[in-house]
């Protein structure tokens, strides 16, 4: 089966690269710790964020309708998409109606999830991702490996080569300042030539019909202000009840994501400027299914900060692409099975259940518990491979029988002692590839106890 373990093993063939990736992301985790530590009552803020999200999800229909009503009153056009296909069709139709040939996009994991770029390109529309990281992966014909830092898997030197090829830059040996300036020049041209801008949505406010887009590069604003048409795409879970709740989430988001007190730009959109149009596409694409699963519904609390990804010791050592899903890391591993259980069956097992993701999560998603629960669902509905099933059934049989457990232990220890090393450490012994097995003692604790204490 082609899953996370195979991709992660491939990633680990270059240990120096793994160390570099791990160090880069751990630094972000440390910045998060420092910045979260400056907020008095950070833990209360997390609780508040979690509670607001739980309340919103319990009244989701009502808040979505309230949002729609207010947005319409503001002169915004609202569209509803049940799935990715409908979302892509709606966006394409709006663009066609406005005869858009060139579209600039700010970061949106939703459009990534829906596969919007290839869809539009097939319709002859030129799409430019304007978030620097996303532009880099777009030029490299890759997918983001992280939801906040899409090109975190790429070294400066690789970007240097990529820019030489696509932007005609000179060889700079990975000079970050030079490369950023060249990217800026390149993207400014794209903004000026664009006919329309598409953005994601970080928070949509039911009370006002307005929405907020957070970026560090100002690219959402550049696109929106340079073009007459703004399309904003949002998942149904992006809604918050009222303006006053925004403060809670804006304080949590950037601190958790990158260790900044706030994103450089928190852009508020409410009504179109004269001569402009704003369209909002509200997308379900499997979210209401997840809402209907009591054990997994709070995964919809997610505000896409990426803190669980940065802290995850497995993600840092396996890279975002190893997950094979738009959202990698712990949060992706509990969202992906809800989309396609069969395809993503290895993801809930790509964790030691260490729980760091839960403790770092600004909206307290119990990710480690959901990983455990998804494992049960996967074995129940998808089964496991033959050997694993056999081993587990046999183990269960032994664990329920104390006499057999004692006997099996004795035989096992003896076999381990007398079997030649080359057989014990055969290719089938995955544990023993790089690790020694414990040295088998002469007696078990139970044997010792019976002998000593009766």
């Amino acid at each position, binding site marked *: 089966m082609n899953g996370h373990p195979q991709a992660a093993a491939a990633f680990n063939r270059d240990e120096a690269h793994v160390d570099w990736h791990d160090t880069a992301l751990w630094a972000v985790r440390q910045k998060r710790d420092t910045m979260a530590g400056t907020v008095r009552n950070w833990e209360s803020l997390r609780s508040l964020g979690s509670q607001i999200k739980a309340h919103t999800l319990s009244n989701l229909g009502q808040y979505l309708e309230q949002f729609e009503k207010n947005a319409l009153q503001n002169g915004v056009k609202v569209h509803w998409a049940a799935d990715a296909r409908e979302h892509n069709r709606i966006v394409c139709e709006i663009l066609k109606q406005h005869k858009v040939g060139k579209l600039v996009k700010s970061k949106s994991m939703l459009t990534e999830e829906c596969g919007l770029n290839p869809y539009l390109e097939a319709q002859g529309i030129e799409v430019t991702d304007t978030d620097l990281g996303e532009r880099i992966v777009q030029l490299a014909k890759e997918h983001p490996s992280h939801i906040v830092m899409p090109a975190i898997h790429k070294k400066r030197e690789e970007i240097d080569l990529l820019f030489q090829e696509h932007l005609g830059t000179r060889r700079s040996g990975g000079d970050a300042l030079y490369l950023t300036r060249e990217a800026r020049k390149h993207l400014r041209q794209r903004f000026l030539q664009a006919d329309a801008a598409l953005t994601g949505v970080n928070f949509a406010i039911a009370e006002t019909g307005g929405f907020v887009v957070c970026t560090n590069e100002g690219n959402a604003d550049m696109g929106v202000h340079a073009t007459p048409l703004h399309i904003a795409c949002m998942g149904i879970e992006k809604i918050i009840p009222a303006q006053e709740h925004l403060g809670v989430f804006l304080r949590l988001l950037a601190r958790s994501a990158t260790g900044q007190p706030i994103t450089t730009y928190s852009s508020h959109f409410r009504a179109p400027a004269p001569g402009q149009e704003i369209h909002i596409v509200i997308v379900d694409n499997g979210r209401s299914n997840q809402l209907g699963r009591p054990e997994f519904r709070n995964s919809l609390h997610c505000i896409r900060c990426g803190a669980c990804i940065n802290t995850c010791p497995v993600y840092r050592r396996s890279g975002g692409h190893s997950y094979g899903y738009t959202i990698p890391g712990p949060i992706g591993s509990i969202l992906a099975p809800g989309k396609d259980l069969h395809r993503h069956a290895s993801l809930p097992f790509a964790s030691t259940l260490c729980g760091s993701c839960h*403790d770092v999560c600004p909206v307290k998603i119990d990710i480690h518990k959901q990983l455990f629960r998804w494992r049960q669902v996967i074995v129940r509905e998808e089964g496991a491979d033959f050997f694993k099933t056999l081993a*587990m059934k046999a183990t269960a049989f032994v664990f329920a029988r104390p006499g057999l457990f004692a006997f099996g232990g004795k035989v096992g220890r003896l076999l381990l002692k007398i079997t030649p090393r080359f057989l014990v450490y055969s290719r089938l012994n995955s544990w023993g590839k790089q690790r020694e097995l414990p040295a088998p003692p002469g007696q078990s604790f139970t044997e010792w106890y019976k002998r000593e204490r009766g």
Partner: protein
Amino acid sequence: MRIALFIPCYINQFYPQVGIATLQLLEKLGQDVFYPHDQTCCGQPLANSGFEGDAVRTYDLFVRNFQDYDYIVAPSGSCVYHVRHHFDIIPQSAEVSHVREKTFELCDFLVNILKIDKIEARFPHKVGLHQSCHGLRGLRLGQSSELMGPGHASVVRQLLAGVEGLELVELTRADECCGFGGTFAVAEEAVSVKMGTDRLSDHLKNGAEVITATDMSCLMHLEGLVRRRNLPLQIKHVAEILNSKNKVSI
């Protein structure tokens, strides 16, 4: 007060000295300790692999073995976490609830139930404490590095700090996972080994001679790496350190 000793399956089979140290330590502290002979396992290896349904009979056996004691004490945070949090799929009889509530990790039991703040022991070595995740974040034996604000100090650290001659080394990453993770260690061998070697480097870099933890499972993984790579590190379960006498040679 009747205390039952719960010795996790792999400790029973591979690390009897850890069980012996736990028993001796509790007895030294004047406790009446019993060992139900028919115990096997808490069922965690099955459940964490997705075979929770097959673990039910193991859960039932566990409850039968331990229901008649006031407390159940184990030298493991992970197995205790499993009993407390994952025995929720069997009918919650009075016996099941009792067993779930009264099963304790050793250090937690010493500090929070017996109210002991200092153990008379001597262990003159530089020790690195590996904070096993299920004890730390599952049982909250200490405050994890992700959480902010004043938290309670680790009960494990507190007990180790009282051991004569023992010097705790500070790690660069205070509580990163070692990569054991049960079947994860085998299914995700590459990442598991990398996580383990990174932990070992942290301990070595900061001058640890001995690595200890509440959980022998993490230590089994780390020990396997230490032995294969011939690293200058000793592995001791926290019970062994707390039970060490005046003259200790390791």
